[in-house]
């Protein structure tokens, strides 16, 4: 393609990327280096139905000019990144120095919201991603071997978990696993433990969230693999059969290698999605047991007093986390497309 043609062809995409990716990113990064100006507090007499009291209020006039001149707030550099609600360098160093054992150090990290969230997020990513790929492949193989009249119907049903809005899907399951819900009381029956509750213990909440994550995302892997299965060369399969390969051997040596670029693709998308796990935590009211970086961002800007700089910092940390996670997959893809280097 000529360079000029390419330029005009690519221009709309480039503009959209600038507008929807580069600009918000710049805004988030610059916000994370700024904090609001110091507030001037006044003592005011506040009267309400219960009487009058002298309380502190904010003097808006005192900082009006300052806020107009520097609407972003004051430059604080990496201060917010280093503070206790984010990377907490000072606290981590203290914990390390005062540690009695390595596990003790890890459990004291649990007091810091960033590391607490990372603990769950990474577990979720590490467990859910391979399971999604595995289940997606199994469902795709199963559906593909069905009679063609049944296929359409089964594809539709297999996709349902992905079609349901995550928040709605998790809310439905939340009520089903309640101690008085159909799944919850069923489990109590099976394990004959009337006090069994999936919502009351951290371990079981994590299991619930992970099961939900696999349930919700497996259809995505399934539909990608199912599409891939339609392109598996018949000749290779037939020759494998003639050579006496069992169905399992056919899958392992013909189908899976053929699908491997798709596995990389699904892994890429899933690593990214799972690292940003958010809706199930809200849907399952799981914040007592499991939080994620996305949940922290939401919590920072969802309270009566909103912490924008804190939320921006966590957003940048999330982006860095995603990049680190994707690095191996990205490097691999890069090599595949540039074999001569």
């Amino acid at each position: 393609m000529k360079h000029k043609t390419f330029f005009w062809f690519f221009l709309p995409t480039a503009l959209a990327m600038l507008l929807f990716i580069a600009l918000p990113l710049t805004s988030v990064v610059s916000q994370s280096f700024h904090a609001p100006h110091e507030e001037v507090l006044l003592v005011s007499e506040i009267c309400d139905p219960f009487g009058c009291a002298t309380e502190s209020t904010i003097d808006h006039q005192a900082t009006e000019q300052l806020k107009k001149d520097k609407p972003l707030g004051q430059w604080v550099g990496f201060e917010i990144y280093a503070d206790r609600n984010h990377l907490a360098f000072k606290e981590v160093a203290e914990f390390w120095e005062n540690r009695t054992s390595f596990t003790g150090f890890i459990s004291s990290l649990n007091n810091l919201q960033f590391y607490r969230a990372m603990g769950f997020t990474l577990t979720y990513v590490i467990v859910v991603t391979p399971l999604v790929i595995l289940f997606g492949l199994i469902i795709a193989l199963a559906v593909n071997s069905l009679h063609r009249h049944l296929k359409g119907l089964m594809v539709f049903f297999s996709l349902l978990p992905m079609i349901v809005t995550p928040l709605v899907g998790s809310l439905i399951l939340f009520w089903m696993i309640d101690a008085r819900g159909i799944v919850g009381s069923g489990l109590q029956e099976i394990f004959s433990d009337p006090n069994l509750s999936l919502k009351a213990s951290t371990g079981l909440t994590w299991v619930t969230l992970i099961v939900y994550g696999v349930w919700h995302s497996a259809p995505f892997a399934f539909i990608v693999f199912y599409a891939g299965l339609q392109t598996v060369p018949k000749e290779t399969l037939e020759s494998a059969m003639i050579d006496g390969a069992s169905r399992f051997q056919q899958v392992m040596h013909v189908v899976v290698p053929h699908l491997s670029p798709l596995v990389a693709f699904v892994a890429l998308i899933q690593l990214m999605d799972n690292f940003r796990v958010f809706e199930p935590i809200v849907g399952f009211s799981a914040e007592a047991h499991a939080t994620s970086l996305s949940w922290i961002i939401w919590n920072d800007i969802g309270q009566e007093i909103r912490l924008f700089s804190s939320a921006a910092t966590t957003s940048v940390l999330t982006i860095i986390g995603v990049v680190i996670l994707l690095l191996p997959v990205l490097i691999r893809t890069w090599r595949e497309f540039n074999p001569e280097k």
Partner: protein
Amino acid sequence: MFLRKIATVVALTTLASSAWAGCGASDGRVSIVGNEFPAIQTVGAGAMECAGGGVTVEKNLTADHQKINVPGMQGNPAEFTTAIVANSSIVALMNNDVIRPLDDLVAKHGQGLQKSQLITVDGNIMGVAFMANAQHLVFRADILDQLGMAPPTTYEEMLVAAANIRASGLMENPVGGAYKAGWNLAEEFVNMYIGQGGEFFKPGSAEIAVNNQHGVDALHMMRALSNFMNPDFLTHDSNATSAEWKAGNVAIMNMWGSRVGPLKSDEVDPAVANNTDIAGPMTVGGGSTPASTLWWDGWTVSKNISDADAEATFMAMMHAIRPEMLNDETSPLAVWLIDGYQPTDAAKGVFAAAAMGTTPYPMLPYAGLMHSAAGKELVDFMQGKETASQALADLEAAYTTAAKEKGYL
């Protein structure tokens, strides 16, 4: 049948709107944001009656109101012309300077308001309160009678009652409580800490001071109570706790006065509804100040809107809280601060709270930061993962970090 119902409702709405069109204003835009409990729904519906003529009225009543009210009022013109707030949430509006003083409008259209309804800051009217609220005891009279117990007046008695009910086999988890991690759990801590006689901040500063014996005692009481709650208590907000009550699973709880009405409604099993009774808030640890907080709910008017919109909004909201809106149906929904309100049986809990000298929720610019830090840092203690003083130390550290970022420290 269904269609006819719809047609009637539509016809009635049109009638109603034409009857009140504008509520005295000739044109303007009214847009309401607020919480969603029944009393506020009534006020919202009252303001909707003013739609018609040149006046448009919209409402957005949701439990997430505090997440959207400030952003929705910061634009110019603001999306919301009024926010229905409480003593905690008006602070966020004042912090962000998005509400206007109402002195001129009160002078012009505010006849009939009582002086006690006006929220003033250094003499400027910033809001109009229409109801009071507090958390107080709700109990099942039949269960307590059966065991020959009087309704508890202290949390220590509540624990005894809970143990008795469990021992009798009537209920496994007789205590209810909105202990959901986040805002609700923090609110219960605020109540309990005040009941223990604690002060949240060093006098005259934004420096937090909760890691003390009062805080430890408050947390231990909360944990003791949670032993008698549904094991899922950290996921139960006021709605879920109310559902537990309606299902007959709970016999004693500390609950909002404004939530009692629905517990006694026709839709609830009569065995539960008819035996649901209320009393004043409980004290704790031998203190005399109840472990509860007093709240008002009221409305404000946006700063970033035209004078015409502000006037129309003020008049529509005045219409919504006019004395004539009080009737048999609306009176029990809240403790109305409106002229002519006759306290009903449903109000005795909140009145008792006021009479006992319950502390109002602190209207401090940084109280919200303390509240949200408590909501996430006390969870580990409630699950038995750390000590009370460790949880309080975490709470103080998390608050201090956030307050520094916001420029309060």
